[in-house]
Structures are given as structure tokens and as C-alpha cells.
């Protein structure tokens, strides 16, 4: 189907199903359950996961395949957002033109930055991209305020021209009149599920983004990118100039970032300069590595994990912890809460840092590799167990002309 072989088709269908049923999957607990805290099935978080999933998938096309570590992708995210908001302000609040311009503008910027940065490789490339992103951020925050509205962020105002919108047009980002912020709620017993237009809009793009990435992974182009990572010297002596391949990958990943930025603006029509800061670029690096760089599913997993933790973990404050451990004797309860609260709530960044270090040190293949290891362990234990989530992924890494690694 769609130019995919059977295995990939199954894999792709699973991804589509997971995406469509996210409102259920991320909302496993009843509203009154003590674990309701861990529910993540609300529109903002689901859309964030989809958007950062797109961002990470794109980043993975560059980093995972070619090995070029860019710290500057936040700049493309920001440009995408600014472009989208400008479309909202000038043309229409319909999200399509906005998203299209976001992709184009970020692609152009990526072409420029990539053309300069890719003249170097290794750490020099990383530093160059870092420098470019930092420059972009600083300019956006201050000097370029007429374009970016600086610290406050570019936003839609009632006084904007919006020349394509008639008098009766919707006042919020919409899809041909259907507002992205609209949701339907489904209550089943104690459970509450939210279906949000914006989420499904982002999810559609996420599926498309994933499909394109899948095709790239399987294509001769993807093979060339992996060759860039494996051995540039040999590539040169095979009559191939690595530069256009890397530049193409850079631009594609920049456009992915721009798409993510445009969708962010569509979900919330305000573009702040902070999303261009290099630490945001660092976040997508963390997502990709945590999930598993160079794998298809890894970046999405990483993005989901981090966004979920950021939103849910950071809300577990001391009060919540006290509730959980109230069954313990007082002294012990306080001790446990004190220790745990170092790592949750406002301390969640510490947890993130630790987890990230451990993953880089012991699990270079990220969560995907972790899943594979567990699956392998289970298989060895129970003879023929299920492959688990890692099962489809195992083949995703290697070329389709290759059967799964022999076990």
C-alpha cells in the first residue's frame, strides 16, 4: 500500500491507529481515580506530542541518518511560527496558507543556514548551527521586534487586515470555518475522552510526516544519507558528493521544524521568541536520542515521553506526593516525599537530565533499543512471546531488502 511493502504497511497502519486513538490511549484513568493525575489526553498535550513528534521526526532525518548534530533547529521552528502568525494577520485565519508559508519560509532559512553550516562537519557544524540559532533568537527578541513583537510574542489582533476573511469569518484559527480549538467530549462511566479538531489536524500532518520519513528511510536517498554517516571518505571515492545529500536532509528537516512551528501557531496563535532559543533545539536533540536516533519510531516516542513528563511530572507537587504516601508513618512519609519531590514538580528537569545521561551512556539506541532488548529477553524466556512495540521497529532500522536480524 502507498508504495510500502507489507511489513511497512502494517507498521504504518499501526502508527495511524495509535495516532487516531491517542485520545483514548493517553486517558487511561477515570476522572475520580487517584491516578487521574496521570491522564494526558487533553487537547493541548496531545497536539504538543504530535507537533514535537513532527519536529523530532524531521530532526531525525538529519541527525539519525547523516549523523550531523544540529543545535540550531529551534530557529526553523520559530520562523515557521512567525510565518504562520503573519499569515493569520495578513491573509486569513484559515490554517492552510499559514502552514504552507511556514514550511516554505523555514525551508528557505534552512537552505541558507545549511549552505553555510554544512561547509563544516562534526563539532564545528554543531557550533555553527548553535551560533546561528542564538543569533536568530537574540535578533527576534530585540532588534526585530517590529517583525516578531519581541518578548511578548507575535499575536493576532482584532485590528489585523486579514484580507481574505470576510466579516463573518471565525475569530480563531480554523480549518475552512471549523475552529481548531473545538472539542467534543465523550463520557463513558467515569472516563472522559476529548476529541479536538486541532489535535486531529496536527495528527494528520504527523501521519503524513511519518509517512514521508518512512519513504525517505526506504529510498535510495535515505541509503545515501546513511552512507554519509557511515563513511564520507568512501562516499567521495564512490563518485558521490555528500554535500547535496546532507543539504537536502538539512532542508527537509528544517521544513519539518517549520511545519511543527506553523502547527504550534495554529494551535495557539502566538509566536514567542523563546521557541528559537538553542535550548529548544537541545530539547529536540534530547527527544530524538531518548527515543532512538536513526529509528523511525524513536523520535515520536521520545517526543511523546518528554512532553508527557514535562506536563504530568511537573504537576506532581509536594501536596500530591503527600496524598499518595499518606499511608506511611509520618516521619517516613516526609522523608519519602522530600526525596521524591526533588525529582518531580519543579525538579522534573533534574529527572530529565539524569534519564538523558543514562540513556546516552547505556542505551545509545534509546527507548526503541530498550524495547527491543526487553522483547528479546521475553522471547528468550518464554520461547515465542510477543515482539512488543519494538517488533516492527527492528526492521525499520535496516533496509527493507534485509530480513530481520537473525535471532
Amino acid at each position, binding site marked *: 500500500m502507498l508504495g510500502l511493502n507489507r511489513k511497512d504497511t502494517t507498521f504504518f497502519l499501526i502508527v495511524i491507529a495509535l495516532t487516531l486513538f491517542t485520545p483514548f490511549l493517553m486517558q487511561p484513568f477515570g476522572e475520580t481515580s487517584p491516578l487521574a493525575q496521570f*491522564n494526558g489526553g*487533553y*487537547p*493541548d*498535550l496531545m497536539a*504538543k506530542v504530535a507537533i514535537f513528534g513532527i519536529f523530532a521526526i524531521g530532526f531525525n532525518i538529519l541527525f539519525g541518518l547523516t549523523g550531523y548534530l544540529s543545535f540550531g533547529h529551534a530557529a526553523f521552528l520559530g520562523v515557521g511560527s512567525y510565518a504562520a502568525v503573519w499569515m493569520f494577520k495578513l491573509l486569513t485565519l484559515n490554517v492552510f496558507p499559514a502552514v504552507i508559508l511556514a514550511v516554505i519560509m523555514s525551508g528557505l532559512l534552512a537552505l541558507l543556514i545549511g549552505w553555510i553550516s554544512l561547509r563544516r562537519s562534526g563539532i564545528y557544524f554543531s557550533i555553527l548551527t548553535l551560533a546561528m540559532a542564538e543569533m536568530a533568537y*537574540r535578533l527576534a*527578541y*530585540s*532588534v526585530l*521586534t517590529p517583525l516578531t*513583537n*519581541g*518578548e*511578548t*510574542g507575535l*499575536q493576532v489582533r*482584532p485590528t489585523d487586515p486579514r484580507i481574505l476573511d470576510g466579516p463573518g469569518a*471565525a*475569530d*480563531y484559527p480554523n480549518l475552512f*470555518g*471549523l*475552529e481548531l*480549538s*473545538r*472539542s*467534543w*467530549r*465523550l*463520557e*463513558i*462511566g467515569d472516563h472522559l475522552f*476529548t476529541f*479536538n479538531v486541532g489535535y486531529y489536524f496536527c495528527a494528520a500532518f504527523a501521519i503524513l510526516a511519518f509517512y514521508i520519513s518512512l519513504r525517505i528511510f526506504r529510498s535510495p536517498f535515505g541509503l545515501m544519507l546513511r552512507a554519509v554517516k557511515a563513511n564520507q571518505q568512501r562516499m567521495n571515492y564512490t563518485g558521490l558528493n555528500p554535500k547535496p545529500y546532507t543539504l537536502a536532509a538539512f532542508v527537509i528537516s528544517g521544513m519539518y521544524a517549520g511545519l511543527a512551528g506553523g502547527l504550534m501557531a495554529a494551535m*495557539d496563535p*502566538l509566536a*514567542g521568541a*523563546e*521557541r528559537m532559543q538553542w535550548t529548544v533545539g537541545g530539547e529536540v536533540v534530547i527527544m530524538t536520542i531518548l527515543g532512538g536516533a536513526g529509528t523511525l519510531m524513536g523520535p515520536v516516542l521520545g517526543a511523546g515521553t518528554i512532553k508527557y513528563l514535562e*506536563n504530568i511530572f*511537573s*504537576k506532581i*507537587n509536594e501536596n500530591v506526593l503527600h496524598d499518595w504516601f499518606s499511608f506511611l508513618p509520618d516521619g517516613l512519609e516526609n522523608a519519602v516525599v522530600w526525596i521524591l519531590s526533588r525529582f518531580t*514538580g*519543579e525538579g522534573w*528537569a533534574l529527572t530529565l537530565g539524569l534519564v538523558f545521561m543514562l540513556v546516552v551512556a547505556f542505551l545509545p539506541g534509546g527507548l526503541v533499543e530498550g524495547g527491543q532488548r526487553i522483547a528479546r529477553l521475553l522471547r528468550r524466556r518464554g520461547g515465542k512471546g510477543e515482539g512488543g512495540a519494538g517488533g516492527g521497529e527492528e526492521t525499520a532500522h535496516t533496509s527493507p531488502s534485509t530480513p530481520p536480524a537473525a535471532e
Partner: protein
Amino acid sequence: MTTSRFTRRGVLKTGAVAGAGVALPTIFTAGSASAFTNEPKGDTVTFGFNVPQSGPYADEGLDELRAQKLAVEHINGEGDGGMLNTFSSKALDGTGLLGKKVTYVTGDTQTKSDAARASAKSMIEKDGVIMINGGSSSGVAIAVQGLCQEAGIIFMAGLTHSNDTTGKDRKKHGFRHFFNAYMSGAALAPVLAKAYGTDRKAYHLTADYTWGWTQEESIKAATEAVGWQTVKTVRTPVGAGDFSSYLTPVLNSGADVLVLNHYGRDMINSITQAVQFGLRDKVVNGKQFEIVVPLYSELMAEGAGEAIKGVYGSMNWNWQLDNPGTKAFVKSFGEKYGRPPSNSAQTCYVQTLLYADAVARAGSFNPCAVIEALEDFDFDGMGNGPTFYRGADHQCFKDVLVMKGKENPTNQFDILEIVELTPRAQVEYAPDHPMFAGGTLGECNPGD
């Protein structure tokens, strides 16, 4: 599935809903709609406290959070009641809010408008908050205020000092109790003129972003009105850390006053370094060189340490004020947390109580009713003397404090002293004052 019930929420415009509802499969028929966004249905009502918990203002956020928790306790009738005992409106009786117990959730703004919007959004969507309060920067306040307007809930701003918050970015759903840059200028300029004379030449270092610019504009206008000249205004990068290259030209520029339009970490570093440069030991144009920091906060004063001794600035409120409201608040805050509250804590505490009071007076959580109750509301007993919530721009008008770094502090909290309590009349302005023009409140939006 037998007991399934379908409702819709988050719909911003009722008109569009009907059409879409029809187009959908029948199981999605609209059920009993709420009257407005996040209408509390159970026996609790949830407030959202959106404060910086990470990033440079985390300590300020922590102090705001302390005050907000205290406010919730007082509304629910726990603790000693704090300012509820001195508040001129008696609609709140310490039994919760319209029969519901008040609970709260917290979010982290990181002092970034993006992150603040995201966390506010998640509080609205996931936690169903009815009101958001907090924050410690104008960028954040403006961004969140816009979001609340769209979502149909109330935003009670925390620390935000830019003119724009209730100026060109004012919103029907946003309310600011804190003072602003214009008021700082109006309060400071006469005191400065008295202390340093009217023949002064000022050199401005300004943080290069919107708040810095509005403050520079306001202070410049106010000081020029009392006869000062402005020699030069220089924009400095946010988070520069080392301001030496901006400080070196000051002494030789002919200026005899340095105005630091910085806040937070930038202000701590710039004033520390300015003092290190020996600026305040110098005599220029036959006058002692002086430094002015238009916006003070306790945490900044603490961070700058010795450097602020004798330096003038302005504040919204200070725990040393001598009035019943202040005394009651400092007592309950101090006994609970062992330290006096900061002025950002006070503004968050008061904002939370004011919101609750407005709900109680309106008898409804409906944002439109609440807005009506808050607009043009006169009150007293909240620590700032008689205060007026102007309906035209949702700005509070009250006395402004001019502060000075204390020369001989007796304890760790005694670092600033009140020089003058500038009366409200002196800092008032018309809603369409040029520095505030260009904004419209918009319409009240109850959501769905």
C-alpha cells in the same frame, strides 16, 4: 457504554457549533452544554496559579505561590483570614466560594510567553480552571491574558509592570492590580527632583525588550517633565551578565544620573557592576553621581546586596506599610512562612481575593458577571489604601511607594525603606493617554 453522555466543551463560538454538530454522526449530538467555559459543576472550583517555577524568576514565583495558597486557605475559612478581616467588601465569609470549596493547580511559566501559554492552556483544558493568576513578566502577562480572553476565563495578572498590559494589549478578561511604568515615573520623578535637584542629566541603560522600552519611555517623560535632560538611552541585551562595556562610557558622557531600566538578574548584575565602577563615588557636573532603579523588588534588592544602599526606586507595596490590611497579611504570611511577603506575593494574594470577592458579589462564576463586578470597583483594606479598579482599562489605581535602599539594615529583611507614599491622584492618567493608546478591551467571552 449504556450510560454514555456526550457533551461538548471548548467551543468558542456558538454559531459555528450547531452546523458542525449536525454534520457529525448522531452519537456526537450536543448534550447539556455548559453556560460558560469550565463552569464548576461539582462541589469544588479550581483556580490556576501560573507562576515561574523554573528559570531566573523561580524564587519570585515561589513567593507568589505561597501567597496564592494562603489566599485559598483564607477563602476556604482556614487560617486566620488575613486581609479578609480588613477588606472593605464583606461578600466573602470564609466558607469557600458560592458553596464550593476552592482548590488550585499550579503551572510553570518559566518566564517565557510560550511556556506560560502552554501551561495556562493545559490548566484550562486539563484541570478546568476558572481563573488564572500569577506571573512575573509583562510578556507572560500579555500572552496569557490573550489566551484567557479566547478561552473565556478570567486572568488576574501577577507582577506585570509594562504599560502595554493595560494599554495597547488590554483585554476584557485581564485585570491588573500591580502598578505600571507610567505610575513609577509619575511617582519617582518628583521625589528624584526633590532629592537630586531639577538640573540633572540622565543616562539610561534599558533592557532590550518591550517592558524595558515602555519603562524607559515613561521614566524619560516623567523626569524630563521635572526638568531633567536625557543624555543617552542605550539598549542592553537581555541576560548580558556583564554590563561593563555599557557602563564604561557613562561617566564620560556628561550624565550625572544613571537610570537602570532592568529587572531581575539583569538589574542585580547591572547595579552591582555600576557600583563597582565607582559611579556613586564620583562627582560629575559638580553633583554627586546617582543611580536610579525605577522598579524595585525585594528579591532583586536581596540579590544586589550592598549595592542598592541609597538607591531610589518604586514599588507596588511593601510589608513595612502601616495600615491594617498590610499588618494582617504580613502577620498571617510571616507566621506561616517565616518571612515577610514580597510585593509580587501581595499582588497575587490580593488578586485572588478580589476575584473571589467579585464572584461572591456577582453570585456567579460566569466571567461576564465577574468582569462586571470587578469593573469600576472601589475597595480598601487590602494594604494599598483606597483602591479603584478602573473599568475602562482594567488597571488598579492606588498609592505608589517610592523606596530607597536602606543604609543600615538591622536584619535580612530590612533592606528597603519607604521614602514616600505617592498619593493615587498623582499617578492617575486617562485611559487613552498616548502611552496606553491603541488598545481595545474587546467583548466579554463566556466561552461555551
